[in-house]
């Protein structure tokens, strides 16, 4: 029991992933600044932002107390659970349980749902636009993302258990070293961009048009929790991709190198692309991304 609590709250769970997530968030801001030829914030910036938001007043819109205040915590708790499951399955691959990949996939949708629920309960028209866009975004990226995960599952012999997928890659080589693996990985990276709400697909909180959209009415503690959820997601989803596609050698140095590599790709995509409109996003994900993912699944079934 104490071990479970320790896992959930401290080591692969809450504290560890929050620290890594904030540092990754700093890396994202710093590299963006360097790309724009600026100097960028100091390394502790995201921690200070979080602390500051904890100290601010929390304003709650009229008639929306419960859902408005509960939804950020709902998202945070599910993301912590995902990071715990992933961390444990990397450390002790044999102790993972049957079907934890499916649990992870379901839990990763909950932060987006929390954002939608919170934004809709705030009663702000701009927030409702943001919520509707977020909803369409979830519908758009889930299909290609799950198809690319299915490719990884087929490549590792039909295992839907993270530990088994890792073991399979340990003996047969990473899933990415094949045609279908490469295609599925590219699709997954693009979906990851949308899942994290980064630039080509950040329509739901477009700062310039709808003023932070879904987050517009949040202040103080709930806003800090949403920022924390985003930070932990920035740690969790790349690690999920590493487990699914790059699981050959997961010693700490290689793990960190792979994580930073994926992070760099995300940041470069973020800094070199303009924002797409929601209809373009939908067309992109249900068009070319889904077709690519289906091609990857078919190639994987043929054994390529």
């Amino acid at each position, binding site marked *: 029991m104490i071990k479970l609590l320790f896992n959930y709250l401290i080591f692969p769970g809450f504290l560890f992933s929050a620290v890594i997530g904030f540092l990754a968030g700093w890396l994202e*801001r710093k590299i963006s*600044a360097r790309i*724009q*030829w*600026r*100097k*960028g*914030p*100091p390394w502790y*910036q995201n921690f*200070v*932002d979080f*602390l*500051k938001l904890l*100290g*601010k*007043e*929390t*304003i709650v819109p009229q008639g929306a107390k419960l859902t408005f205040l509960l939804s950020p915590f709902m998202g945070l708790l599910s993301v912590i659970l995902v990071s715990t499951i992933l961390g444990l399955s990397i450390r002790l691959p044999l102790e993972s349980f049957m079907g934890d990949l499916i649990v992870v996939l379901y839990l990763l949708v909950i932060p987006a749902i929390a954002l939608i629920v919170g934004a809709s309960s705030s009663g702000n028209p701009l927030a409702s636009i943001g919520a509707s866009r977020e909803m369409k975004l979830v519908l758009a990226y889930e299909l290609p993302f799950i198809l690319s995960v299915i490719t990884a599952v087929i490549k590792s012999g039909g295992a839907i258990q993270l530990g088994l997928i890792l073991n399979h890659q340990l003996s047969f080589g990473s899933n990415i070293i094949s045609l279908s693996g490469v295609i599925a990985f590219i699709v997954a990276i693009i979906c990851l961009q949308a899942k994290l709400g980064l630039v080509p697909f950040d329509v739901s*909180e477009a*700062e*310039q048009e709808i*003023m*932070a959209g879904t*987050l*517009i*009415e*949040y*202040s*103080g503690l709930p*806003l800090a929790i949403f920022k924390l959820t985003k930070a932990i997601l920035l740690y969790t989803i790349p690690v999920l991709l590493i487990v699914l596609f790059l699981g050959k050698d997961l010693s700490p140095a290689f793990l960190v190198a792979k994580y930073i590599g994926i992070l760099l790709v995300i940041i470069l995509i973020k800094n070199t692309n303009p924002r797409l409109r929601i209809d373009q996003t939908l067309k992109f994900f249900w068009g070319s991304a889904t077709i690519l993912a289906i091609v990857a699944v078919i190639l994987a079934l043929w054994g390529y």
Partner: protein
Amino acid sequence: MNLKLKALTKSLWVFHAACSPCNNCDIEILDLLTPRYDVERFGITLAASIRHADVLLVTGVPNYKTKERLKRLYQQAPKPCLVVAVGSCACGRVCFKDSYNSPCAVDEVVPVSAYIPGCPPKPEAIIAGILKLIKSLKI
């Protein structure tokens, strides 16, 4: 000095309220975000919504319409919220003092914490003003 205030001074999120300015001050404020001045070094970024803001940055002379908006913006901001008046107009209305459409100065509507005069103030002057504001908070 407590932790809350220290964190606030290290990460100021700015909401830019343009109360009928002539846009010169706004251009200088945008210069602060460019590579030459880069205020993100100090953790200062532009916030999209007033609910996220720590600093309400006001430019221009309020007229009858923007006066009400400015008051409401300050009421909507989560406290502690600082107000910075940028430009001579926001500081003291200068030559628009007797104008028919200028009912009051900025500091008659909201409590101003820092005045940065100039028409428009140079980006260096704005950075210096904000650093002085941070220093005055620390005491």
